[in-house]
């Protein structure tokens, strides 16, 4: 089963880290990705750019409306994700607890809803 680990944290905190701390942080993420790959659990992951680069689009009465900024202003922002393969929710939770993002923010674990009839599904 696939699970999406959504990483939320206060992105302003990152800017307050020293270069050495940032380097250590990145190394931890790299090691985490490596452990996921070795375990055959890794499917995909990406880091997202800052929330100030976000643009939100909605179509109201057939008219697109485009807004600067995120859909919702929150204390912690979605900063990245890991898509993983896990046998059960508990296994996904175990991976979430190992994610460096869980020590400086929150990791939301969501099972992927497989869509029938999709070309790649």
């Amino acid at each position, binding site marked *: 089963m696939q699970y999406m680990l959504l990483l939320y944290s206060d992105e302003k905190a990152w800017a307050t880290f020293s270069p050495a701390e940032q380097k*250590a942080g990145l*190394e*931890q993420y*790299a*090691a*985490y*990705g*490596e*452990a*996921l790959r*070795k*375990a055959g659990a890794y499917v995909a992951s990406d880091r997202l750019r800052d929330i100030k680069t976000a643009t939100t689009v909605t179509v109201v009465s057939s008219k697109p409306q485009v807004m600067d900024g995120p859909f919702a202003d929150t204390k912690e922002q979605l900063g990245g994700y890991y898509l993983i393969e896990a046998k059960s*929710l*508990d296994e996904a*939770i*175990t991976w979430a*607890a*190992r994610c*460096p993002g*869980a*020590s*400086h923010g929150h990791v939301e674990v969501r099972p992927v809803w497989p869509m029938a009839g999709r070309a790649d599904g």
Partner: protein
Amino acid sequence: MSAPEGDAAATAEAVARRSYGKLVAFLAARTRDVAAAEDALSEAFASALADWPRSGIPESPEGWLMTAAKRKLIDRARRAKTKDAAEPQLALMAEELGEMDTQDIPDKRLALMFACAHPAIEESIRAPLILQTVMGLSANAIASAFLTSPAAMAKRLVRAKDKIRDAGIPFEVPGREELAPRLSAVLDAIYATFSEGWSDPSDFDDVRRDLTGESLFMAQLVVQLMPLESEALGLAALMLHAEARRAARRDAEGEYVPLAEQDVTRWNIEQISEADILIRRAGGIEGLGRYEVEAALQSAHALRRLTGRNNWAEIVALYDALLAMQGSPVVAINRALAIAEIDGPTIALDALPHPDSDARLANYQPYWAARAELLARWGAAAEAAQAYDLAIGLERDPAVRTFLLKRKARLGH
């Protein structure tokens, strides 16, 4: 909140913490209905919070709660059952209620623990079940400790309690002939709780830190109620030794400190001597079990650091005994690390178990951390770096991750 109300709330809470398991065990012992006992008790606590601020805190808060909870149980039985079916049980309860000496509630916690760790109860839910029924922890707290979803944990706990009631699992300490395996199920459940708590010694995770305290309390309770069982003594000693070193596992900056580098002046010497007394008591009792050997190992590690005496040969011998008893890869990993202290990293690497023979090792953090250390000592920097990466990636304690990053940086790779 006015002052008396605050007092009443604080007293109710203190009684809840101290007596919860005792009250649940006593209430459930006759009916085997743990969930009903817990419900009745929580209603009794609610009544206490409403009543005590008005009428004052009763002389025996525990007895008051017991009486109130019994009444709730009887009310519930009256509502739920037909008159015929309920009558004998109700008569018994009413009788007991009338003559109960509130000062002296019999301690049925051990019987409750044996019911929770009964072979008919699935092994992985035994420790959570004991934590909830004997210690009164919430399903949420237990789910966090065992890394599972709170909704799923709550459901599994309900199912296990249904099973105790419906399958007629006895609330009793088993007889001599089946005691050993049944007791080891109870001790394993307590130790599983302790290990979950121990995995995060940092001060910010209250749930986990409390778990070690709760499980130590339970182990000491078993010792108190079964003072001649060497494995119970061994488990309590093992946990006391680990607990004695808690403060030293973090330095002033909150960073992880391994045993070899710990400041022994920060160890709790009273707990260490208490543990060693338990070990000597266990030694005087026939039979040698897993927990007794593990306690002896902890004691030997503590002695080495305290006296500077090189006792690695003794430690390897203890690991040999444990490996013969258990055959677990976890023991084999620690044995290999001890071998490295005598014979060096090459022989130790050969002694290390391999993921090819046990697939669980591939995702087992302590395996990669041990492998990395041994490879680093052997001088295989590139391979050590890879092993460190896996150890870091599989670790959930940020302090340990930082420690391993530093070790990896020392490779100069």
